[in-house]
């Protein structure tokens, strides 16, 4: 019998360093994600946002530091326990990561079939609910290869939500969606948080949705290899003095770059 988990979902990261090989991409990251909050991982391209997400969801062992998920040190518990914690997390990958040999309904149904004792009609009802919630209008027997990028993303989100996870990790959820779809997604994330009490950790560049829905966040910097700001995106926009963060939040070209504008290369 596993020990009971700390009530609710919460992530606490302490002194984290991670990277591929021995060279860290990011160093000395410390932050907490409060239960029921929507937390943004921000930063320029290539600063390690998606890699940080990989560490948090257990795909990449950190080089140093600890990750506590719901009170347990994720990387020092047994592999079985890690799997159990992972089952209460839903992950939306950047490109959807749908299993290409299964129909979209089967993609969403697989976690339910594997980890619950529900009958097929009940699973069908749940699958339909999740596909409806993400606003997918395609029939469930379509194959992932028949879908556009945005639709794959939505199916990926429906799959991430299949087991009603406590923590949702979303890697660029609104990339590839039209503005209405992106707005709908914001509403859905807020409604999931309010309804199910889910905690959401998302990597995003979509400034309007960052400002609208996130109440916490971390800003990673590729040059200094560490976090340069922590806080809600709208607070960072209004109050952060760091030039990189300011430029990012206000869609400006940093002054140091515009002096020698080399066509966006940095």
């Amino acid at each position, binding site marked *: 019998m*596993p020990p*009971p*988990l*700390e*009530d*609710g*979902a919460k992530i606490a990261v302490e002194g984290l360093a991670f990277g591929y090989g021995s060279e860290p991409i990011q160093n000395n990251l410390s932050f907490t994600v409060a239960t029921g909050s929507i937390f943004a991982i921000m930063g320029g391209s290539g600063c390690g946002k998606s890699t940080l997400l990989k560490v948090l969801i257990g795909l990449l062992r950190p080089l140093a530091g600890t990750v506590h998920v*719901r009170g347990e040190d994720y990387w020092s518990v047994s592999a079985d326990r890690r799997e*159990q*914690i992972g*089952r*209460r997390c839903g992950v939306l990958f950047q490109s959807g990561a749908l299993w*290409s*040999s299964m129909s979209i309904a089967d993609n969403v149904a697989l976690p*339910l079939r594997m*980890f*619950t*004792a*529900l*009958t097929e*009609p*009940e699973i069908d*009802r*749940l699958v*339909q*609910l*999740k596909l*409806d*919630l993400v*606003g997918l*209008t395609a*029939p469930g*027997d379509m*194959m*992932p*290869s028949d879908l556009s990028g945005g639709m794959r993303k939505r199916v990926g989100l429906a799959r991430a*939500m299949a*087991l*009603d996870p*406590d923590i949702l990790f979303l890697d660029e959820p609104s990339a590839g969606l039209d503005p209405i779809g992106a707005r*709908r997604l914001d*509403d*859905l994330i*807020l*409604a*999931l948080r*309010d*309804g*199910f*009490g*889910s905690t959401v950790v998302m990597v995003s560049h979509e400034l309007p949705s960052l400002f609208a829905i996130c109440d916490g966040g971390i800003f990673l910097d590729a040059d200094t290899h560490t976090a340069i700001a922590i806080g809600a995106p709208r607070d960072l926009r209004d109050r952060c003095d760091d030039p990189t963060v300011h430029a990012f939040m206000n869609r400006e070209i940093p002054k140091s770059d515009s002096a020698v504008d080399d066509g966006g290369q940095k």
Partner: protein
Amino acid sequence: MDPSTADVPSPTTVEPAWECRDDGPSRLVVLSGDWIARLHAVPSDAFETILNGPGLSSVALQADKIGAWDSGLLTFVAGLRRGADQHGLTLDESGLPPSARRLLALLPRDALPAAPARPSRSIRAVLGTQALTVWAEGGAVATMLGETILRGGAALRGQARMRRTDLLVALQDAGASALSIVIVVNLLMGGILAFVGAVQLRRFGADIYVADLVGIAVVREIAALITAVVMSGRTGGAYAAQIATMLGNEEIDALRTIGVPLHDYLILPRILALTLMMPLLYLYGSVAGIFGGFLVAVAMLNLTPATFLAHLQTSVTGSQVLFGLSKSIAFGGVIAIIGCRIGLSAGRSASDVGRAATRAVVAGIVAIIALDAVCAVCANALRF
């Protein structure tokens, strides 16, 4: 939110329950318990019980006493909505938690139109489509072959629009990198051949002819065929997988849009590499096969090295080497063309890449064996 990770109902959760209170034509359904989808299923007869009643016109939901809930509650309400529409009832959801109503508001109110039924096709249509596909595929392969012959000469003179590095990488991959496995396989084949042959020949006191047997079989057939089978599995499959992956990543589309001739850029280096390297691999394979036979003959059958070599010299003629060598060139071309063509005609998903690689290997092996059979028949007819 229920914190349990167990997949069975834990003692802290309560089965979902409801109670109907009728007041004339309107019915109040009071929900209680925990509505957690993965832990408790809602009985499927619930909808019929709730939505059926004499003179019923409206159903209101009340959730004051509800415990924890997640998708379980939402699927229940969604099911009630559908049922209420069918029964012509009004469903009042205002008694549900506000956050649940927000999620429910995201659901489409109208049922989605059913997917159009796939038209059933007659056997004639299926056969006809298949025949047309085979015909078109034959045309595509012939085009590729023709282009290769036309552009191959230009490429050898350095006039094709391909990158030199691509050709060198392909040459290395189809040549040096494949050498060790080709040598090992041929060495073992020569040894096996010598062993099986010697057992039979010894019964007639003709052990000495094992050198002739190994020499002729390896040089004429085995080395070319075995090397081609190895290369089909190793390189033909890889070509198909590489090109199918590029297709899936839209790399091929990108090449097309900037006007790069696909054949020169993508196909030609691969076909040239395999066609140029196969005869070399064949020669190495022949030597390895004969050496394998030699080892078995000397070590296990008590032949002297000198007798083996003397017999080999008289039995293996230059024309037989030439026969094997030309076959190996043809095999190389066939494997490369099949691999590239199957890669280019693959679908765009990850499973299509695997399927293309498998098809390329199978089709390559079948094609070289068929071609070898044709060569054998021709050689026999020409008394070669």
